[in-house]
């Protein structure tokens, strides 16, 4: 790599570095804003604020739900119970009432019997009733007394009457124990009895304690009286005995007790079998099974006597109902007690309802709780994510900052290293030292390139890469790239060529730096992987449809012959160098079409605003293995790992190129055949530059080629048509009319023909450019002869200059041969570049400025010297020391320097016409700063230009006033640079002056 390149690199690095810095500063507010966001989001939501309460709330809820469930159950159960009690009460009452009714019916009937006895036994004389009648009657009316097991009549017999009575009846009075009764005051022997109780006939009722009491009470009250329950004779059932008094005579209306006792003649008694009685009764009723019924005699309240009921108490003791029974005996009290057989059945409905209620409540609670917990969890997650996001973003910012910082930190010392190495290389070094220094420089450059690439990649990833939009000329950029690689290609013996179709506009808007980066990358790759053959960069307007169709048809048309060409080994391919390429886009068959096609459609696309360029870089290198072709554009991927070992590089270049191409609105693709070569092609969109837009930027127009060759004629002798077209392209740019001949013989012939046909006009070529291959391939012996021929032709008052085009450096022997063969004039080393060709031609033809064209590759201060020598330069700076240093630096390179200390003084000096070639302008000056001064200068110039252009067309050339103004500034940041361009400056140099920096800036304006 050349030194010039190094310097440019250093400069670029500086720029990117500044860019990195600003980027870094820009990151801070972002980070701050992020933090604020976090702060805002940290405010707890309601759910978050009360998260600790949720389990408690949930527990509370469950308890409340259980409570509610219990309440529901109790409510429903209480309802049940009330109903149960009511049912029990009503059933009990009903039973009591029925019992009572039945009882009173029986009592009434016994009463009736008593009256019957008194009427028919005592009032009738003789008695109408005897035992038989009584038994008959009572048996037949037994249905009336269902409750009574039987009735009997006992007559009152006083002791005095006993004998008489016993005699009359024929039996003695017996006690209950069936023994002859002892003597008492009175007796009550049963004289009539129902058949069911006939066993008590002749028994003295007064002898039983219960009966006696009953009898006494009955005759005293005159009403039916009951005994307390006791076991009845003849049966095991409990029973009570009902006793009615029978009075002899009619009683007075309100008889006293004494009267009643006196009047009593007998007693009618009946035994109630309560047990069977109640059983019968209950049997008739529904719900009999459900309840237990007890009947008690509660005359003595402290000791109730049971009359009916099972003794075993397995029923529901908790609930009972008492019903009063009135059996018509005021002296005795009875009651009925009912209770359920079984305990209250558990209320399934209530339980179910309560249970369901609980379950639903629990579920609802759980859902709410779950939802809340979920919200909490989600919010937690969210916060966590947020935090992670912030951290990731912070990390990203940190990464960018780190990258910027690190690259800055690396670049700064690297700049120093490279700069110092460059300076070191300028000093007198021994060859070993030189070698070491060069190696060090190469490594340093590689490192810087890598850093740049990584930074680029990072920038692209971050979407922070923005393309510039400045006018630039693609041809000069391609020339630059070519010059970059010329040495390498020459050393390798590879043909390196550029062809830009005529249709491509000279200038358009875009990002020259990035465009150059892509081209450099592609060409660099090609150079790296190519050992023989050629690398061909071709640029034309992309009109995909048409070109592709043309290409297709061409393939079909020539299909057969192409096959032949490809297979035949010794055949030369019609490519640039004759080597086979990956595809035939750039073979002559296509190429010629393209050229003619574009000529044909001269002004079709002129109107459109966009220019789409199609750039292809073809090489005949090792190609890309098929397996690796897919990942060619992936960063850090190389065809295989051995690539980096063998060829170096990081594999990041292509991915950057792809990104850049995409940024430019294009696509990149490639065709590659292993061991044959690769062709990378990409499209890119640029904006067409408006004519007036760059009129004031005329000077930096990169196509700043000398015009002194206009109208010259040249013949290019080249057997390879594509290569010839390339040569033709470069010459055409210089305004030279070119014809192509495939051999020297043909060239001579055509000249001769021309001469002969139009002898008077003497259309002689001024220059003959001969390709080295064409010359060497066996025609050298002819050359002198032909030259002679030319001479003899008579028209040759001026011999055409013979120029040899060579790909690689000629050996001593070769150059001798060349000289001998008549190419004394010069040898142009490829790759061709218009400016270099121009320089050579100047030397050969002796026209144009006096310049030392010897060195094709500009080299450090020598070039600066050549650039600046004799130039008149104005330095404007208010700082004396700066001024002195700048002047010193410029003077060193032979410039004629004048200094002023203010913008005003500069304006005074720059009144048109002046003879300054350039102006270095400090930006920060008191009174009038550099921007303002430049603006004024440009105003003056444009006024002058308008005047002269308007006035005299002839003077138009002189009227192009445009003094290159370069800003001198200490802070080389983009903003300043943009400002510089805005106010009409042409560039800037950073203060303090540095050689490479100066060269960079100056080289644009003072081209060789």
């Amino acid at each position: 790599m050349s030194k010039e390149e190094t310097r440019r690199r250093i400069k670029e690095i500086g720029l990117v570095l500044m860019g990195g810095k600003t980027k870094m500063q820009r990151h801070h507010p972002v980070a701050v804003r992020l933090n604020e966001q976090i702060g805002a989001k940290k405010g707890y939501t309601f759910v978050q604020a009360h998260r600790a309460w949720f389990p408690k709330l949930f527990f509370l809820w469950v308890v409340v739900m259980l409570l509610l469930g219990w309440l529901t159950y109790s409510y429903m159960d209480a309802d049940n119970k009330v109903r149960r009690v009511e049912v029990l009460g009503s059933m009990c009452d009903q039973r009591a009432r029925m019992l009572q009714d039945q009882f009173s019916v029986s009592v009434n009937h016994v009463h009736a019997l008593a009256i019957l006895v008194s009427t028919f036994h005592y009032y009738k004389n003789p008695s109408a009733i005897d035992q038989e009648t009584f038994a008959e009657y009572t048996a037949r009316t037994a249905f009336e007394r269902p409750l009574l097991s039987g009735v009997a009549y006992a007559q009152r017999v006083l002791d005095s009457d006993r004998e008489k009575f016993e005699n009359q009846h024929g039996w003695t009075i017996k006690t209950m124990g069936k023994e002859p009764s002892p003597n008492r005051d009175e007796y009550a022997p049963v004289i009539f009895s129902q058949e069911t109780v006939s066993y008590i006939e002749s028994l003295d009722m007064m002898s039983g304690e219960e009966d006696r009491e009953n009898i006494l009470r009955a005759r005293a009250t005159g009403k039916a009286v009951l005994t307390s329950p006791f076991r009845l004779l003849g049966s095991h059932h409990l029973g009570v005995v009902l006793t009615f008094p029978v009075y002899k005579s009619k009683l007075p209306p309100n008889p006293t007790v004494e009267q009643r006792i006196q009047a009593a003649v007998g007693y009618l008694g009946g035994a109630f079998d309560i047990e069977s009685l109640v059983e019968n009764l209950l049997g008739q009723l529904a719900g009999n099974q459900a309840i237990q019924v007890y009947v008690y005699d509660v005359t003595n309240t402290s000791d109730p006597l049971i009359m009916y009921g099972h003794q075993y108490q397995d029923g529901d003791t908790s609930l009972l109902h008492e019903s009063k029974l009135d059996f018509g005996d005021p002296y005795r009290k009875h009651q009925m007690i009912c209770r359920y057989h079984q305990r209250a059945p558990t209320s399934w409905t209530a339980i179910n309802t309560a249970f369901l209620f609980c379950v639903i409540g629990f579920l609802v609670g759980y859902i709410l709780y779950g939802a809340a917990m979920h919200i909490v969890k989600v919010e937690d997650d969210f916060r966590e994510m947020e935090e992670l996001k912030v951290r990731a973003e912070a990390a990203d910012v940190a990464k960018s900052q780190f990258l910027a910082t690190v690259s800055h930190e690396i670049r700064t010392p690297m700049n120093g290293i490279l700069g110092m190495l460059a300076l070191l290389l300028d000093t007198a070094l021994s060859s070993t030292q030189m070698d070491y220094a060069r190696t060090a420089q190469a490594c340093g450059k590689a490192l810087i390139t890598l850093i740049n690439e990584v930074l680029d990649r990072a920038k692209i990833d971050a979407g922070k890469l923005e393309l510039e939009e400045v006018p630039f000329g693609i041809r000069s950029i391609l020339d630059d790239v070519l010059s970059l690689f010329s040495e390498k290609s020459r050393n390798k013996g590879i043909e390196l060529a550029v062809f830009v179709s005529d249709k491509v506009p000279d200038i358009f808007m875009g990002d020259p730096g990035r465009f150059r980066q892509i081209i450099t990358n592609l060409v660099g790759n090609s150079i790296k992987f190519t050992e023989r053959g050629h690398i061909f960069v071709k640029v034309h307007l992309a009109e995909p449809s048409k070109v592709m169709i043309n290409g297709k048809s061409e393939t079909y048309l020539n299909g057969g012959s192409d096959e032949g060409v490809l297979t035949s080994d010794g055949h030369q391919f019609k490519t640039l160098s004759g080597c086979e390429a990956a595809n035939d886009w750039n073979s002559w068959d296509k190429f010629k079409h393209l050229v003619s096609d574009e000529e044909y459609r001269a002004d079709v696309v002129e109107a459109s605003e966009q220019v789409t360029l199609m750039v292809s870089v073809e090489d005949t290198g090792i190609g890309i293995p098929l397996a690796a072709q897919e990942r060619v554009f992936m960063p850090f991927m190389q065809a295989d790992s051995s690539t980096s070992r063998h060829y170096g590089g990081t594999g990041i270049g292509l991915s950057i190129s792809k990104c850049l191409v995409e940024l430019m609105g294009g696509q990149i693709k490639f065709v590659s055949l292993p061991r044959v070569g690769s062709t990378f092609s990409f499209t890119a969109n640029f904006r067409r530059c408006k004519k007036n837009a760059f009129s004031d930027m005329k000077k930096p127009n990169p196509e700043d080629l000398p015009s002194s060759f206009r109208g010259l004629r040249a013949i290019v002798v080249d057997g390879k048509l594509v290569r010839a077209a390339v040569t033709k392209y470069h010459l055409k740019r210089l305004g030279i009319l070119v014809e192509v001949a495939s051999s020297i013989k043909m060239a001579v012939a055509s000249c001769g023909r021309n001469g002969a046909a139009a002898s008077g006009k003497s259309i002689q070529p001024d220059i003959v450019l001969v390709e080295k291959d064409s010359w060497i391939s066996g025609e050298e012996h002819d050359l002198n002869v032909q030259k002679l021929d030319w001479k003899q032709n008579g028209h040759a008052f001026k011999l055409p200059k013979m120029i040899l085009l060579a790909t690689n450096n000629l050996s001593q022997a070769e150059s001798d041969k060349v000289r001998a063969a008549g190419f004394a004039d010069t040898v142009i080393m490829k790759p061709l570049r218009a400016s270099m060709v121009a320089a050579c031609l100047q030397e050969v033809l002796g026209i144009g400025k006096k310049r030392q064209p010897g060195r094709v590759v500009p080299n450090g201060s020598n070039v600066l010297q050549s650039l600046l020598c004799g130039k008149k330069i104005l330095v404007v700076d208010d700082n004396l020391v700066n001024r002195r240093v700048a002047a010193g630096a410029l003077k060193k390179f032979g410039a004629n320097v004048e200094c002023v200390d203010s913008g005003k003084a500069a304006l005074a000096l720059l009144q048109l016409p002046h003879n300054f070639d350039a102006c270095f302008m400090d930006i920060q000056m008191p009174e009038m700063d550099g921007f303002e001064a430049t603006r004024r200068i440009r105003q003056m110039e444009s006024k002058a230009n308008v005047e002269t252009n308007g006035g005299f067309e002839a003077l138009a050339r002189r009227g192009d006033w445009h003094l290159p103004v370069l800003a001198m500034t200490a802070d080389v940041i983009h903003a300043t640079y943009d400002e510089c361009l805005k106010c009409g400056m042409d560039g800037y140099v950073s203060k303090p002056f540095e050689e490479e920096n100066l060269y960079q800036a100056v080289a644009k304006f003072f081209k060789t």
Partner: protein
Amino acid sequence: MEVGQMQRQWVDYTKSLFLEGFLDGQFLQLQQLQDESNPDFVVEVVSLFFEDSEKLLNDLTRALEQPTVDFKRVDAHVHQFKGSSSSIGAQRVKNACIAFRNFCEEKNTEGCVRCVQQVKHEYYLVKSKLETLFALEQQIMAAGGSIPMLELNF
């Protein structure tokens, strides 16, 4: 003193100036600009720098002594000073100026006064160093020797 020894001394001294950060690459550039056609270029420029600086320092001191400090003016002076110091490669002066300008922007009088002292300090330091250097050069020249090219490998 022998010429060779003086030359060595000169080289060492110059190196120490770089190593201690008094000077930077710009001074080297300056030295490179000096050649036969312009033999006293460095001395000339540096003397200019001295003159300019004395004036600026005076101005600065005066400006800061005013009851109301015109920071714009101070800044302009410091800018000038920074420019000229960076032009001759007086690195430490330049750095002091950069700090100074920050205080100017903040309109921090106290900081500015401190900075003036700092700048002055650095300036006199580098001045004495450079004067020593030039004296050494003159001795070498007087002894008939030439100033050696400085090795750039520090």
